[in-house]
């Protein structure tokens, strides 16, 4: 009777579509074991604050009204844009008041242990039975990442979809603050997405360059705009119609120039930030451009070894037979060999000693994709020799991998990489262990923002520092 009346209610709820066990909202996820209408025990109260936050903001999850010393599992679930399910969970025991405070209490098991306020996000992983090699990326930054937080009875490790949770709340994680404008850029052959903070400006700006994956990722630029920078997420890999990856430094210069000339941008305060292949583009621009003079640069998981042309060539020929690469015991593809040994001849490397602006280098010591540790050592030596060591700041994180993303992005040790030219796939080993990699992402982002604020906003620390 309860079931039927519930279905009638569900039908009346026009917006709610139930097509699968995991479909949101989870109120439909009932096991109907519990009689709804009479309850001897008070239900627990689960809260998350803030309910809607920026992706780099911490949240506070509190469970109240449990029994004292009750074993519970706090669980997070996210349904991604590409229709995959990611979950994380921690095992807790309530205190004598029947309360669990995730920010303060220690998880005794699950996908993370210890006192980890944000473990429910950074330890997210594909649910059992998912395809191998997934990576979590938000392509549409105009909508939030929606995460269900639930609390279950007992210390569970699986079967979350078969159990009825004691309580569920929903939280939104946004890459954009309200008021940030998103503008598609198609100008003078340059392609990208521009994010402009609200207000009259002018603002400092960041040219944001990703690596060798698909198209352009907007999420970091959106986040930078939410911190007060005009940010241009540059698309440079899909521009060539012939299917040949061939982009000159001139393309990046043009992009820099377009950004700098915007009326909302303070032309003297532009930075370039790149990850992986984008870092090479960053170093190249900073070293060689006669017109682009960034105020500062950030290179994440980058290397000065091989000029862009060579790297594009490598990207195009990316498959398991590529010389100097190898497969590990799990058939995961290790690329880093192509950078080694670090050449001694200067013309095989980007001339970093020509860089005139402060440079922040961020690397993971377990980077299996690029030889960033060795490259950075070489960069340090080169800059030492040319008396420019004071321009360089190096952040080197033990057990962190290649994909150093904004904080709380789930760590993946490997994921599917598709060669855009040949459509061949490899399972790319990025490296890193989850907890140290998550710590690295959090620390690196904070320091990147501080670095950008220092050089672009005249030494004023970002909001969270005050």
């Amino acid at each position: 009777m309860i079931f039927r009346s519930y279905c009638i209610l569900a039908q009346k709820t026009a917006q709610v579509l139930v097509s699968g066990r995991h479909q949101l909202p989870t109120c439909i996820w009932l096991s109907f074991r519990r009689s709804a209408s009479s309850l001897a025990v008070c239900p627990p109260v689960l809260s998350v604050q803030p309910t809607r936050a920026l992706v780099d903001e911490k949240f506070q999850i509190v469970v109240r009204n449990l029994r004292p010393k009750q074993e519970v599992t706090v669980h997070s679930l996210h349904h991604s844009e590409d229709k995959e399910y990611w979950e994380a969970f921690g095992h807790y025991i309530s205190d004598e008041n029947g309360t669990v405070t995730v920010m303060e209490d220690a998880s005794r098991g699950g996908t993370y242990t210890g006192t980890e306020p944000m473990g429910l996000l950074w330890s997210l992983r594909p649910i059992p039975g998912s395809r191998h090699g997934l990576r979590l990326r938000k392509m549409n930054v105009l909508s939030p990442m929606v995460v269900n937080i639930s609390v279950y009875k007992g210390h569970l490790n699986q079967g979350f979809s078969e159990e009825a949770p004691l309580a569920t709340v929903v939280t939104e994680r946004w890459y954009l603050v309200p008021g940030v404008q998103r503008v598609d850029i198609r100008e003078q052959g340059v392609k990208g997405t521009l994010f402009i903070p609200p207000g009259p400006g002018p603002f400092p700006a960041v040219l944001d360059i990703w690596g060798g994956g698909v198209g352009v990722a907007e999420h970091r630029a959106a986040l930078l705009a939410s911190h007060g920078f005009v940010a241009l997420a540059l698309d440079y890999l899909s521009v060539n119609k012939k299917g040949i990856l061939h982009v000159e430094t001139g393309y990046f210069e043009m992009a820099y120039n377009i950004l700098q000339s915007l009326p909302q941008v303070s032309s003297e305060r532009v930075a370039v930030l790149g990850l992986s292949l984008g870092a090479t583009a960053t170093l190249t621009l900073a070293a060689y451009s006669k017109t682009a003079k960034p105020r500062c640069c950030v290179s994440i998981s980058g290397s000065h070894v091989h000029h862009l042309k060579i790297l594009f060539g490598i990207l195009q020929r990316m498959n398991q037979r590529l010389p100097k690469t190898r497969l590990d015991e799990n058939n995961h593809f290790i690329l880093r060999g192509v950078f080694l040994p670090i050449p001694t001849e200067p013309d095989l490397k980007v001339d970093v000693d020509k860089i005139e602006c402060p440079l922040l280098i961020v690397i993971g010591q377990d980077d299996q994709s690029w030889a960033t540790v060795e490259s950075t050592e070489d960069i340090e030596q080169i800059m030492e020799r040319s008396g420019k060591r004071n321009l360089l700041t190096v952040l080197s994180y033990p057990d962190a991998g290649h994909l150093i993303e904004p904080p709380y992005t789930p760590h993946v040790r490997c994921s599917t990489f598709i060669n855009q030219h040949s459509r061949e796939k490899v399972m790319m080993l990025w490296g890193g262990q989850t907890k140290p990699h998550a710590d690295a992402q959090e620390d690196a982002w904070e320091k990147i923002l501080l670095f950008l604020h220092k050089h672009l906003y005249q030494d004023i620390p970002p909001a969270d520092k005050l």
Partner: protein
Amino acid sequence: MSGKEPCPLVVVRPSRGIVDEKFVVLVQNLPPGLAVTVHALIHSEDDDFWEAFGHYISDDRGCVNVAKDGSIGGSYDGVKPMGLLWSMKPIPGSRPGLRLRKKDVHTPLVVNISVYQGHMNERFKDTPALACAVAERWYKGPGVQRVGITTNGLKGTLFLPPGAGPFPGLLDLWGGGGGLVEYRSALLASHGYVSLALDYMTPKTSGNNTQHVGNDYFEAAFRLLQEHPQVCADRIALLGLSFGTSVALGMAVYSPVIKPKCLVSVSGSHVMPVNGSLSDVFAEIKKNAHNTRHDEENRIIWRDLLLPIPDDPSKKVDVGQIQCPVLLLVGEDDQNWPASESAEDMRQMMEKAGNSHLLTIASYPGTGHLIEPPYSPHIRASNFMVAQSRTKVIVLWGGQTVPHSKAQEDAWQKTLVFLEDHLYGIKHR
């Protein structure tokens, strides 16, 4: 043309908040010691503009932190973290008698925060700002479902918290203004209650007959909550504001069907014909129409319509028979309803009957009739449509902005604690 120097930055955290959450507004990158005005603007659904502003001086780091620094002028002064919201008033030149109420709870209130150079009091529209930010204020938390209710002749909206539940329930009754007002229920659902906002003032008209809803209407509403699979049937509260309190108290005492676990009365009174229908209540109030007064600006004061508090027991709800905890929230400057006098009389009745241990009264000085969720802008008077005669008048609600806003914050806190205590069994120490 872009200047060479970058502009100041204003940051709001959280940038998307629930309406009862505090926020922090931070301005940075100003020259030190600069006089600035921090200004907030809302463009309402009714196409009006509301604004508030504070006067500050940047510190030696070039920052202003509205949560920590004191405003030295504007629409609020002193350290008032949320002053940019609760001190909002319609901008100069607006239509008179406005009230800020959110109709569509699927979208947030959008607040534009701007920083201006100097200590300004007007002409914000004509002056370029130094920096801007946008903050959203939501009545509805993520995952809260909204369900329109038209079954059993009822007209209302049900809000359900996310999750399977079951949850305690709440019947949410607004006052004589009528209509279907959803925002408080959306907010309560965001706090874990299945909340039914009920439209009961709209009379049914068929031919020449205008009929108000009978008591069975409220019983049907209560039963809907009781029978809902996601509601704990024995944990349902009644929450009434103004006239809604009269309904709530009457039902709690006299209805064989409605047995609330607890009751919250905001700016309410127990004075009404015993076990009367809505029509009876209106007829009785009409008898006292000559008690209507006006203030110096010809705004209507209706508080005397129920005064003096009758001794005749047939003219007021016998609160001595109430069996559940009751929280009375009362504004001492209520010009619309004699909430203070009623609360005092209720206290005496319950003491006499021996059930006054169930009663909690929170009485707020300088506070008017419209005790709304926190940070809602205070208005001392506004337009009101008299339902029966369809005439527009301006009603005096009362209250002074600063104490009234403080009261709203405290009253909401007390309401949430009270509901958690009696519906969730959570004792706050």
